[in-house]
Structures are given as structure tokens and as C-alpha cells.
């Protein structure tokens, strides 16, 4: 197996050891802890009063439009990383190229700003 794939195998071992450690501790806890369920204990906590309606209540997600903006910006950031590693080779050309790119990106942010998307509605 190549060194490259072995690094990823190490990542798998790390995930496995996390699950193993948590499983081990939860297993020890299962041997020690009491288990006495009751109706009151199992109701959802709502500051001591009986819960009103469903737990999955509707709530207004005020910042869902941010999520769309986030997707745009995150994808742009992915494009910038390869450029950043090769900047020494591209020098002036790469700089101008990325300058235009970041300018367009900023333009998008200013547009969203002016449109009032970044306001708390």
C-alpha cells in the first residue's frame, strides 16, 4: 500500500478508536448506572411545565438566505487554495487574475448587502 493511502487508513483508525473509547466508557457506565424510567422523567424538558404541542415546533429560520451566500463563497474559497499554493510560479499574472476574481466576489457581497440580505429581518 502506498504511503498516501496509509495516511488515510490512519484516519480510519482514528475514527475507530474514537468509537471504541466512547463505546468502552458507555459500556462501563451501563454496568454502573441505574435504569428506572418513569413517565415524568421521559417527557421533554420545558422549564418544568408540561410541554406544549410538538417538540419539532415550527420556527422562523431568519438566516436561511445566508446559507445560499455561504455555498457561493465556500466554493470560491475552494478555487483560491490551488492558486495560493502556486502563486510563486504565476507571479504577476496570477495576482491580476485573482484580483479580478476577488473583486467580482466582493461585488457579489456588496450587492447582497445593498439588497438588504445581510439584515436581520
Amino acid at each position, binding site marked *: 500500500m502506498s*504511503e498516501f493511502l*496509509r*495516511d*488515510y*487508513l*490512519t*484516519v480510519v*483508525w*482514528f*475514527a475507530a*478508536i*474514537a468509537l471504541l473509547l*466512547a463505546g468502552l*466508557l*458507555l459500556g*462501563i*457506565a*451501563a454496568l*454502573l*448506572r*441505574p*435504569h*428506572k*424510567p418513569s*413517565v415524568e*422523567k*421521559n417527557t*421533554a*424538558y*420545558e*422549564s418544568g411545565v408540561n*410541554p406544549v404541542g410538538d*417538540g*419539532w415546533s415550527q*420556527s422562523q*429560520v*431568519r*438566516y436561511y438566505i*445566508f446559507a445560499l*451566500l*455561504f455555498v457561493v*463563497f*465556500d466554493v470560491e*474559497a475552494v478555487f*483560491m*487554495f490551488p492558486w*495560493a*499554493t502556486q*502563486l*510563486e510560479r504565476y*507571479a*504577476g499574472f496570477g495576482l491580476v487574475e*485573482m*484580483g479580478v476574481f*476577488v473583486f467580482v466576489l*466582493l461585488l457579489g*457581497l456588496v450587492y447582497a*448587502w445593498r439588497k438588504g440580505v*445581510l439584515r*436581520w429581518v
Partner: protein
Amino acid sequence: MILAVDLPYWAQSLLRVLGGTVAVLLPAGTIVYLFLFKMMSFMQSRLGPMEAGPYGSLQLFAEVGKWLQKEDISPEHADKRIFRAAPLVVLVSTFLLVAVVPFGPDAYFTDFDAGVFYMLAVSSISTLGILMAGWSSANKYSLLGGLRAAGQLIAYELPMVLAVLGVVIQAGTMNLQTIVVKQNSDAIFGFDGLGNPYILTQFVGFMIFMIAVQAELTQTPFDMPIAESELVSGYMTEYSGFRFLIFFIAEFATAGVFALIASVLFLGGWGVPFSWFGWDAADTGSIDNWMNIVGPLIMITKMVVLAGIIMWVRFSYPRFREDQLQRFAWKVLIPVSLVNIMLTAILKVAF
């Protein structure tokens, strides 16, 4: 390869996994005892835990013993499978994150060429766990906490990515190991007495990174997802017993790992800021072998300092409002970090 000894693959893996466990639990324990128990108490003019061991130093073991005996309650209407899995997802995220941190020239777990990418990708998994916990609890407080956590990650992931980009431009690589060696062997405008720890040339990036880390860790002033005065305990409201403790351990372990990553990116990682050693950025073999022993100690020192700053801010500031949080990220941090990137690139090309 660890300590230049040729070990079979299974022994290497075993060493790495043991090292990783230590690298997760040691920062968590240190931060909780040193800062959460003691520093917070002294800042509030009280003594903190004093009974278990000298100066309460065995308090952590007492806490684990206590939590092991607590009943594991899952609410009646909860989505039980997701409810039980959520803390594990958060803990796995922490372990995956520590896998990328280099502790010495040969003392690393993984040596990814796209280490920075991996770090940014894996750090978002914990929010998935938080969202799972918030949704599956079937509790209004939890749901709101989970949604707030998602909104916060979205807002602060970007400044973090863009702040790291400044470091990548300066180093010209995404490999964390090379970033460390470069910081210790480079020069600032021809002056090589200090090496080039990027905190000096990327100070704006460092500040943005630390603010984003504070938000990603949901520490005060960015603790809206937990917000005990409005949401009881946010996404953790319905958790009890050891599952709650797993959330807690993961939170502080992640704080430690982020402090480690910040010291790798900005403080020169496992090196000290003097170019006494005559390192060569292109050749890790030019670094003395004993750095594998000293390196982890230097890393832990830097981790304690940075985690101390994170906790200091946490204990000092009141909570932001949700709209202030979003406004700060989108209208201040993102424009500033974009300008920072362009300035860094111009200076890099000019010199």
C-alpha cells in the same frame, strides 16, 4: 516513521492511535482543570474545587466517576437512534481533527499534502453532530440550539477558511508539516533571527482565525447554541449521564486541538522562534532527531497559552445577540479577510 526506528505497520498504527488518544484527552483534561475549574474560579474570587486531592487536582477523576453512575435518559418522543449517535459523531470529529497535527519532524500521525483542506473539512463534522442532537431531542430548546449552531458555523467557517488562505499563500503549500518547517527556516524581509512565525506577518489573519475558532467552539461571546439563560442548555438540554460528558469532553478537546492547529499555522508549530538549528525547508532530514521529543512539549506549551486566551475571552465577555453575530461575520470579518488575502498576495509577489 517515528523516532527513526523502523517499526512494522501495525506497531506504527498502534503508536499513532495511542498518541492520538493522549493528544485528545490530555488537552481536554488540562483545559478543564486549569482554566474551567481554577482560572474561572480565581477570576470570580473563589477557590474552585479543593476537596479531591491537593488543590482539587483529582477532581477530573471524581467527575468521571460521578458521570459514570448517572442514569442515561432519552426522552419519549426523541428519535432514539440519532439521539444516541450524536455525541459519538462529535467525538469522532475531534479525533479526526487531531490526526492532522504534526508534533515533530517524524512525530506526526498523517502527512497529507492537502492537510489544510482536510483540517477545514473535518472540523465541520462536529456541527453535523450538534445538529443531529438538536433535531433528534424533540425539544424546542434543543431544536433552536441546533439551528443556531448551524447558522453560526455557516457564518464563521468562511472567515476561518479565508484567514488560513493567507498562511497558505505565504507558505506556498497546504502541507502542515512543511508550513511548520518554513516558519522556522524562512526570513522576514531578509532578517532571519526569528525565522518567520506567521503571527508576525499574518497578524490580521491570526486575529480572524482566533475569533472564528471561538465561534466554531461555541464559547462565549459566541455561545448562542448553548445560551443557558435563554435555551437552558441548547442542543444538550435532553442529554444526561455519560452521553452528556462525551459532548463536554469533545468540546474542550476540540478547543485544545484548535489551539494546536493555530500554533501550527501561526506560531511556528513544534519549533521555537530562533533559527539556531540551521533547518532546510526542503529537507526534513536536516532537523535533529531530538526535536521529536522536544517538539510535542513545545506544542503543548503553545496549546496551553492559546487555549488560555480562548478561555480568558470566554470568561470575560457577555454573549452576542444572534443578529450581531451574523452581522459581525458577514460585514466585518469576510471583507477584512478578503482584503488581507489580496494584500498578502501582492506583498508575496512584490518581494
